[in-house]
């Protein structure tokens, strides 16, 4: 059975069709990426899958159960970082732990162990307003990760990162992905990133979004720097570039 099954989602705002008709599926432990033009409806789709917005029609099944309008099931990193301005970084990222019942002290301690990986060490007492754009994004990603659901939705998590930091984050993400067998839906504008990370890539059309094509990425894991020179990789990239 599919972990996530999205069928015939349609979303219309007042006088604007955002999503025309999208169906997709994610198998258990699968990593899929979504590529599509700016403003086509990608964030809207994740909002719907996470249960924060209701589709005009269509259904979202997770483990076979419908989650239309029901939030709380998945880890979701929004495109906006949504850090709380009144909490310092360590308290911001430990929110999901506190919500799961840990004491504040324990939550902080647990979160603290990840600060190095996320390049936030030394900034635990700083308010979000004093962080750089990329650091805010990393904090938001860490917060999402600490929610620890078996389903993660990530909306352009690495958009403001330099290549180096991005690569570090990729490796880290692959690590969790392999260890925890999470199912991940990942939005990005970076074609390399999409291919490198995913088992499957969905290309969306202009708004109102439809699935233009669904491409399987059969590159063996674990992937590494050599992956980029794999002919399959290069072919896939070319194919995507042609379609877009």
């Amino acid at each position, binding site marked *: 059975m599919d972990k996530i099954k999205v069928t015939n989602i349609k979303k219309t705002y007042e006088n604007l069709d955002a999503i025309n008709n999208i169906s997709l599926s994610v198998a258990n432990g699968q990593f899929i990426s979504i590529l599509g033009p700016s403003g086509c409806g990608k964030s809207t789709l994740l909002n719907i899958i996470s249960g924060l917005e209701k589709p005009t029609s269509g259904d979202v099944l997770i483990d076979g159960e419908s989650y239309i309008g029901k939030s709380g099931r998945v880890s979701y990193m929004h495109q906006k970082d949504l850090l709380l301005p009144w909490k310092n970084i360590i308290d911001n990222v430990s929110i999901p732990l506190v919500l799961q019942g840990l004491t504040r002290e324990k939550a902080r301690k647990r979160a603290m162990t990840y600060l190095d990986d996320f390049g936030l060490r030394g900034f635990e007492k700083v*308010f979000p307003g004093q962080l750089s754009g990329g650091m805010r994004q990393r904090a938001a990603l860490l917060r999402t990760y600490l929610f620890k659901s078996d389903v993660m939705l990530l909306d352009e998590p690495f958009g403001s990162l330099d290549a180096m930091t991005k690569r570090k984050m990729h490796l880290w993400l692959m690590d969790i992905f392999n260890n925890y067998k999470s199912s991940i839906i990942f939005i990005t504008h970076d074609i390399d990133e999409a291919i490198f990370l995913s088992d499957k890539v969905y290309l969306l059309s202009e708004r109102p979004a439809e699935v233009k094509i669904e491409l399987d990425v059969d590159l063996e894991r674990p992937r590494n720097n050599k992956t980029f020179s794999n002919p399959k990789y290069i072919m896939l990239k070319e194919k995507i570039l042609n379609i877009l």
Partner: protein
Amino acid sequence: MSKTIDKLIPLGFSIFIILVWEIFVKALQIPKWILPAPSIIINSLFSNLPYMFNHTIATLAEALLGFVLAIIISFIIAFLMDSISFIRKAIYPLLIISQTIPIISVAPLFIIWFGYGILPKIIVVQLVCFFPIVISLLGGLASVDDDQINLLRSMGASNLELFKMVKLPASMPSFFSGLKISASYSIMGAIIGEWLGAERGLGVFMTLAQKSFQTEKVFAAILIITVLSLGIFLVVSIMEKIIIPWKN
């Protein structure tokens, strides 16, 4: 501008106003039972100080108790109104009505219900103070970023947790606007409460002074009221700085 100069501005301006007042009263020979000169007021203040002390304590106690009660009740009401839409709709009109009724017109009812003690005064202060706090809190709560709420809800936050982690902090700036308004009203609320009948308090003192045509004593009492009110306001402002560190 340096910090010390910053603090000297209001002081200097106040002194300026007082001087103008003194000169104006002297120049126009305004009789002291109409408008006493500041020097006469200060004089009267110091000669009556020891025995105004008791009145001041009484009024201050009423004001502070009422103010704290107002804060507590405001939070409870705002929380209930924010969480339960039925309560919000049912209570909103009553809140407004509570402010529109001139308390003096129903004064006898207050005595009949709450007796002669400190209770009716505290209730008056509470009635005067809680409204700006509730309205500002509700305004603040309504201004919260929905996406932040949604995010935490999607992480399984309960209503109470949402209130504590997002709504409350987000509405603190607005809350403090309301709190400052109420802080300025608290002492005056106690004075109004004392009009419902009291043995002690600056309101009693003022009535007696006024009825025996001692206008300078009335103004001496107003001076104390003003200093107390400014004091409470100042404490609230300092609390604001401490509680909203992310705004600095």
